[in-house]
């Protein structure tokens, strides 16, 4: 077995982390302006009316939950915070009941998403070339073939779950391939994603135990790559150098965790939300089937209107900011979805206009933390919708009440039963 002293298993044993814990508060929200929670079912089911209401009357909402936090809902406020890395830190980017210690900055637990300047630039630079439009285009033919194979498996069924049986598998397969993980490990990835992003209100012991499962898995992958180096991102990160030294072990596994977690339910959500929209809006669906060249424009509109990703920041120091008194270590829930529906920024902000030509949306963030995987996500989304519409041009919601949405900062359908109408028959398929 190849030896690399950096990856000593003892360094990765679960232990009570240093940092600040806050009281876990759950239950119905009394007033979204003063008690918001992105983990309550009302927010998951439909956050847009809540955001519209807050934009009228706050426009920066507050909560005492999670140890205190703020929710701006105007585009200009969201953009200002995304650009202001001097006053808002990325040392934690999942708003919950745990704040990592201040000395974890500027690196953070999962560079570069958790990093602040100046370290951020160098950590991000290591990964940029693997995620350019040209680099990710190599993934397009296998992604297209994989999408076809998922639809082949629908044979004989008239109702399929587009979130569970289609959307989730596409980013899992692509990121497993890029990291060099076994493709059959997909179902485990789903557990890791849910634990990280939706387990925010679990008790600390439970949360730490679940995170340990992720890091045990990543460490096993590192050991396998030390023994059998290959052309993938895991081997690349193990060998990568920064400032003349190989990366710290925690940087390697933190970046692997980031790519695994951030690459999956974001794209899964975007594919699912787009299919949900098309199932409910036959005119848009028919137009895209008739004119697939409109798809790239429509995709930008789906990304605007159903932006899956909300980020978080921590306030660095006490300050008065745009009318509110922020305290050091207050959370900012940085809602790109809310920014994307601000009528001050977009005409017909709450309508989905699939041929919207000017669409300066912020679905992939703004400023130095622009989503590293945006070109990959756009490719997956385009291929997933293109293949679906070619193979299944007619479909509707099988049961609107059965659609469920993920909780937390990544929003998309997690159950999406669709009824397939077979082409040529004009009637529902026989089972």
């Amino acid at each position, binding site marked *: 077995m190849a030896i690399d002293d950096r990856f000593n298993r003892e360094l990765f044993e679960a232990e009570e982390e240093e940092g600040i814990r806050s009281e876990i508060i759950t239950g119905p929200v009394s007033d979204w302006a003063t008690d918001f929670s992105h983990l309550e079912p009302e927010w998951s089911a439909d956050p847009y009316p809540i955001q519209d209401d807050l934009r009228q009357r706050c426009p920066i909402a507050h909560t005492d939950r999670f140890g205190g936090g703020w929710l701006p809902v105007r585009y200009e406020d969201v953009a200002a915070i995304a650009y202001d890395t001097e006053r808002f830190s990325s040392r934690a980017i999942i708003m919950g009941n745990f704040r990592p210690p201040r000395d974890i900055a500027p690196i953070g637990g999962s560079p570069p998403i958790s990093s602040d300047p100046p370290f951020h630039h160098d950590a991000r630079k290591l990964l940029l070339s693997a995620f350019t439009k040209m680099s990710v285009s190599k993934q397009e033919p296998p992604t297209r073939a994989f999408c076809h194979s998922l639809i082949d498996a629908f044979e004989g069924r008239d109702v399929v779950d587009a979130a569970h049986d289609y959307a989730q598998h596409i980013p899992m397969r692509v990121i497993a391939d890029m990291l060099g993980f076994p493709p059959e490990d997909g179902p485990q990835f789903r557990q890791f994603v849910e634990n990280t992003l939706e387990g925010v209100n679990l008790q600390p012991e439970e949360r730490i135990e679940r995170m340990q499962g992720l890091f045990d898995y990543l460490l096993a992958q590192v050991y396998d790559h030390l023994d059998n180096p290959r052309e993938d991102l895991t081997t690349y990160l193990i060998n990568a150098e920064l400032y003349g030294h190989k990366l710290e072990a925690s940087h390697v596994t933190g970046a692997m965790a980031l790519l695994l977690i951030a690459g999956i339910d974001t794209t899964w959500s975007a594919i699912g939300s787009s299919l949900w929209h098309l199932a409910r809006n036959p005119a848009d669906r028919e137009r895209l089937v008739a004119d697939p060249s409109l798809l790239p424009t429509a995709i930008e509109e789906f990304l605007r209107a159903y932006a899956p990703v909300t980020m978080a920041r921590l306030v660095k120091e006490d300050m008065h900011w745009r009318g509110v008194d922020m305290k050091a270590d207050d959370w900012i829930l940085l809602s790109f979805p809310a920014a994307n529906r601000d009528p001050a920024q977009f005409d017909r902000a709450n309508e989905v206009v699939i041929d919207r030509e000017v669409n300066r*949306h912020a679905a992939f963030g*703004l400023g130095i933390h622009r989503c590293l995987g945006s070109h990959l996500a756009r490719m997956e989304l385009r291929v997933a919708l293109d293949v679906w519409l070619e193979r299944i041009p007619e479909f509707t919601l099988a049961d609107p009440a059965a659609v469920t949405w993920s909780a937390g900062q990544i929003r998309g359908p997690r159950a999406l039963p669709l009824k397939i109408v077979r082409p040529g028959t004009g009637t529902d398929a026989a089972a």
Partner: protein
Amino acid sequence: MKLQINSELCQGHGRCYDLAPDLFGDDEEGYGQVLGDGVVPADKEREAQLAVANCPEHAIELLEES
């Protein structure tokens, strides 16, 4: 008309080279680059304006040539 990208503002979203591939390309890290001398042929003005209007970082300028 001449195109210019402010590299201080560009974050590599790639909207310009998606929308106007005849006018923009990307470097090895995905940041946008104006192709050639940036002069926009008359039949490409619409693409140039689309790229300007869709840049999330407001990083592209379309300058009137003197």
